[in-house]
């Protein structure tokens, strides 16, 4: 049962445009993540937020900026996209206690294609 929702599923845009991806989790978790998955399926963490506070910010270009309005939402904005930004962007959440403290629950991803 899906509990991490991402929109849109797909997005095609041109170099230089701005895009925004949305993520919402209904699990009541406090921590949310953005991962980037390249064409070879390699998953790389980009950002992590805990209760609206940024706690992990990997080395990503400045054109990427996460936005969190509350602990259930974590959006990703990309200013002026580049061809190398073409990838699947996966949102995930993690809880506080028990098994949820270590398990990541992923959405189905947003596939970005930059022409």
């Amino acid at each position, binding site marked *: 049962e899906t509990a*991490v929702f991402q929109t849109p599923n797909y997005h095609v845009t041109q170099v230089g445009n701005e895009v925004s991806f949305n993520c919402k989790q209904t699990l009541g978790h406090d*921590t949310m993540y953005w991962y980037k998955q390249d064409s*070879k*399926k*390699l*998953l790389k*963490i980009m950002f*992590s937020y805990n209760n609206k506070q940024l*706690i*992990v910010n*990997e080395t990503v270009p400045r054109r990427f900026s996460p936005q969190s309005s509350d602990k259930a939402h974590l959006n990703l904005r990309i200013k002026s996209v580049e061809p190398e930004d073409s990838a699947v962007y*996966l949102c*995930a959440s*993690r809880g506080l206690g028990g*098994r949820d403290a*270590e*398990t*990541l629950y*992923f*959405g*189905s*991803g947003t596939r970005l294609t930059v022409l």
Partner: protein
Amino acid sequence: SQLAEENPWALSVHEGESVTVNCSYKTSITALQWYRQKSGEGPAQLILIRSNEREKRNGRLRATLDTSSQSSSLSITATRCEDTAVYFCAPSGGSNYKLTFGKGTLLTVTP
């Protein structure tokens, strides 16, 4: 460099056969997680095996963990076509909790 690596890179079996994916990792852990990612979906956890456990089962799945050699394996018995997916291992533990994944093993199960 990657903290975890699965091997082989790809596997192909027929339905009903058993298969094993191996994982080596390079960090201290509190647990080792296995995830599966089907086409068009995000990864989903299959098994979480804690550092003080040597084996964990979940239905047709069996995971082993050897902390001395920093290795783990995931075995699937009686494979089905719906087991076709990419399988990732992810060592977990440490501060800030950044879960890192290996590059994955692509398993293809054919009828």
